[in-house]
C-alpha cells in the first residue's frame, strides 16, 4: 500500500487544526485529523492514514489505532459512495427502522456492514443519532433523512441510484422537529 498523504488543500487545513492545540499537546489533534483523512479517502480511514497522522503527531501507531477503533464513526474498511447509517435504537426501532433495513435487504441485497457490489451503498446499523422525534432516521453520509417509512426510504435509494438530488431532512416536510401539519401541539390547550 502506498503511504497516505493529505491533499494540498487539506495540508493547509491540517496546519490550521494544529494551531488549535499547544505544540506539546499536538496529539490532541488526532480526532480532527482522522476525520479529515476519512473525508479525503471517501468515507473511510485506511491504516496508512493512521500511520501518517500518528507519525505527524508524534504518537505510536497503536495509540492511533486505539482511537480509531474506539470511535465507531471511523470506518476502518472502505464504504460505499452512500453510507446508509440506519438508527436502530429503541425510538427508531419502534417507529420502523427494522423495515428500513429490510428495504435495504430487498432492494440492495445488503445486510448490516455490507456494501453493494457496485460500491454505491453500505449499510450500517448505528446507535441513537439523536433525532428521536423524527424517528425513524437514516444518516446518509453527512445528512439526516427523517420520518421515513418503507416507501419513502425506497424512493430515496432509487433517487440516489439514479444520481438524482434528494432533499435532506424530514420526508414529511416537517421543519426540524416541529409538529406535523399546521401548528398543532402535542397537548393543545383546552383539549
Amino acid at each position, binding site marked *: 500500500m502506498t503511504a497516505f498523504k493529505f491533499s494540498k488543500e487539506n495540508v493547509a487545513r491540517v496546519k490550521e487544526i494544529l494551531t488549535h492545540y499547544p505544540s506539546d499537546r499536538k496529539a490532541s489533534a488526532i480526532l480532527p485529523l482522522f476525520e479529515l483523512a476519512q473525508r479525503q479517502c471517501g468515507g473511510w480511514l485506511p*491504516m496508512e492514514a493512521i500511520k501518517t497522522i500518528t507519525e505527524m503527531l508524534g504518537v*505510536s*501507531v*497503536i*495509540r492511533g*489505532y*486505539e482511537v480509531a*477503533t*474506539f470511535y*465507531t464513526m471511523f470506518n476502518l474498511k472502505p464504504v460505499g459512495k452512500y453510507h446508509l447509517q440506519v438508527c436502530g435504537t429503541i425510538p427508531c426501532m419502534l417507529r420502523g427502522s427494522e423495515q428500513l433495513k429490510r428495504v435495504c435487504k430487498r432492494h440492495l441485497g445488503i445486510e448490516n456492514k455490507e456494501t453493494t457490489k457496485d460500491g454505491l451503498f453500505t449499510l450500517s446499523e448505528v446507535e441513537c443519532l439523536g433525532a428521536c422525534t423524527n424517528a425513524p432516521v437514516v444518516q446518509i453520509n453527512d445528512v439526516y433523512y427523517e420520518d421515513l417509512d418503507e416507501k419513502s426510504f425506497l424512493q430515496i435509494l432509487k433517487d440516489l441510484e439514479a444520481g438524482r438530488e434528494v432533499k435532506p431532512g424530514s420526508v414529511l416536510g416537517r421543519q426540524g422537529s416541529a409538529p406535523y401539519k399546521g401548528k398543532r401541539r402535542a397537548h393543545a390547550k383546552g383539549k
Partner: protein
Amino acid sequence: MPKIVIDDKEIEVPEDMTVLQAAEEAGIEIPVFCYHPKLSIAGNCRMCLVEVNNSPKPVASCAMPVCEGMVVHTNTPMVEKARKGVLEFLLINHPLDCPICDQGGECDLQDITMAYGGDISRFDLNKRAVPDKEFGPLIETAMNRCIQCTRCVRFSSEIAGIPEIGATGRGENMEISTYIQRTITSELSGNMIDICPVGALTSKPYNFKGRSWELSHTPSVDVFDAVGCAIRIDTRGREVMRILPRQNDEVNETWISDKSRFAYDGLKYQRLDRPYVRGEDGYLHPVTWEEAFSRIADKLQQVRGNHVAAIVGDMVDAEAIVALKDLMTSLGSPHLDCRQDSPCLGEGPRCSYLFNTTIAGIEDADFCLLIAANPRWEAPLINARIRKNYLANALRVTSIGPSHPLGYPVKELGNDPLILDQIVKGKHRICSSLRAAKRPMMILGQGALRRKDGGVILKRAQQIADTYGFVQRTWNGFNVLQTAASRVAGFDLGFLPGRKGYGVKEILKRAGKKNIEVVYLLGADEIDMKPLDKAFVIYQGHHGDRGASVADVVLPGCAYTEKDGLYVNTEGRVQKGLKATPPPGEAKEDWKILKALSDKLGLALPYRTPAEIRARLVEVNPLFDEVDCLQPARWEPFGEDGKLDPEPFEFAIQNFYMTDSISRHSITMAKCVQQILSQEKEND
C-alpha cells in the same frame, strides 16, 4: 507529611503517596488488578475501592492521593459489597477454565475471588469470545481470560519503550491487541507474562508443562549478561521448568530479559554429562574421570609449565576462576586471560572496567553519552533504567556508534570514533550540552574496547570524563558496559596475563606453533577455535559447543543453575547464585574438577570445602567478602596514548538471542531469532 488513619491505624506518609501505598505501609492489604508499583496508574479495574470519610461513594485507592486527616476504611460492608460487585463483573466474561489454565495456582483473579468474591454469578447468558492473538514465540495468549487491566499495554509503552500493544475497540468489544498480527519485538516482552494478573498471557515454552505448586524455587543470579539480574529458578525434580525475576531494586527492579527468562531449555540439550578423550581416530570417546585426568597429567608432564595457557569463558563463577588461576600459577604459566573478545580492559584500575554510576544511579543522571554501546542488546535492564530516567526526567541521550533503536529518543552524532577527539578538544557541537550537564554519564560499550585502539578510546573517554565533570565527589559518570557475567570477577581476581604472559590473541596465534602447547578452556566458546587445532586442548564446561569440538579432553562442568557460585556484575556487585538442580550425569562443580585435577597433578590446591574456596577468594580480593554490596572504585588514570582509528564502531552483540553456549542450544531462542530478528530486518 500528612497523617491519615487507615482502619483505625494512624500513619504518617509522604505527600505524593496514594491511599493504596499508604495502606501497604500500614500493612493492610488492598486487592488490585490494574495497579502495578512499577507502572503508571490506570485505575480501571476498580478492585481497590475503599471507603474514605466524607465521600459518598467508594474511592479507587490506587489513584487517590493521601491528604491530611483522611480516614480510610478497607473493611466496611460498603467496601465488601463493592469488591463483590467488581469481581462479579470481572467474572462475567472470564472463563472458569482454571483447571486447564497455566496461571492456576498463582492467579491474582483466582486468589482475590477466593478471598473477596461472592460465591455465585447471576449472569446466565453466554460469555463473550475473543480471538487469541499471535504475540510471537514467547508469549501464549488466551484472550478470553483477559480482564482488560491494561498492565501489558502500559508495560510495553512505558518500560519496554516499544508501544506495540493497545486496547482496541470499546466496551464489550475491547480487546488487547497489536495493530496488525505481529510478533512483539522487545527484549523484555517476557515480563508481560509476570504482570498479567490472569492467564491471558502465559509463557509459551512453559505452556502446559507444570503447575506452580509442584515447583521448588531457588533464588539465584542470572549470567546471560553482566547485569546480574536477580532470578528465581523454578525446578521440578532435576529439571529447570522456568526462570522468573526476583525483585532487586538496585539491579533489575522486577524485570528480566527474555534471554535470561527463556534460554533455560538450552540447559537440556547438547550437555556434556561425562568426560571424553579424543582417540587416535580423531573422535571423542567417553572415559572415566580417572582416565581423563591421566591423559591430562601425561600431557602436562611432557610440557613445560609456561607452555600452558588458560582462557576463561563468559559464564564462569568466581570460584572456578580462582581455582584455575591457582592451578596455572602452580604449573608456572603466566598465560591467563578471561577476555575472550580481547578488549583493552582489565589491566587498569578498577574504575576503568566498572559501571561506576551503578544501575540505580542511572536515574540521577541528566545526560547520557553512549559510545559504541547498544544497551538494548548488551544489557536490556540497563536500557530499561535509561528509559525510566528518560520518562521521569527527560534524560538526554546521545550516541556515537551505529544506529539502533533503543526505545527512547537518541541524538546520534554519527559512527565516527574521531568525534571523541573533537569532544576532548571542545570542538564538537555536543560540548556545550556536556558542559551544561550537572550529572553526566557515559557508557562505553565493548564494541569500542575490543578494537585495536581500544586503549586509546579508553584514554579519550577518561579525558572526556575529566574535562566535562563526569567524575565528582559523589558522582562517577564513567561506565564500561560489560557483556560477560564472569568478566568483572576475572578482572578482580587478576585472571589476566602475568609477567611475560600472553593474552587471548597471542595464545591463539601461538597455539600449537610456538611455545603454547596446551590450552585450558574453562567454558570458553566465543573464541576462534581454528588456531587451536594443533594444540592440546582441555575443555571444561557444560555444553558440547565450539570449545568441545576442538578439545582433546572434555571435562563436564556445571551450568549456572547447577552450582553455588559468586558472580560480579558490571557494577562490581558480588552476588551469589545458588544451585537449583543437580548437574547431568557425571558432571561436577567446576572448582571441584580443578581441585581434583590439581591433586592428580600433585599440585594439590589448598582448599576442599566451599567455605575454604570462599576464604581463598577473599584472600585474593577482599571484595568477595561482602555479597550484594557495592564499593565505589577510586578514580585513577587509565588508558593509553595514541591515535584513534577512523574505522567505524561495531556493536559487541550482533544477535541478542544467541550469545553463549546455553542460548545457542535453546530452541526457544532459535525461534526468537527466526521470528523476531527477521521481522525487525523486514521493518528496517
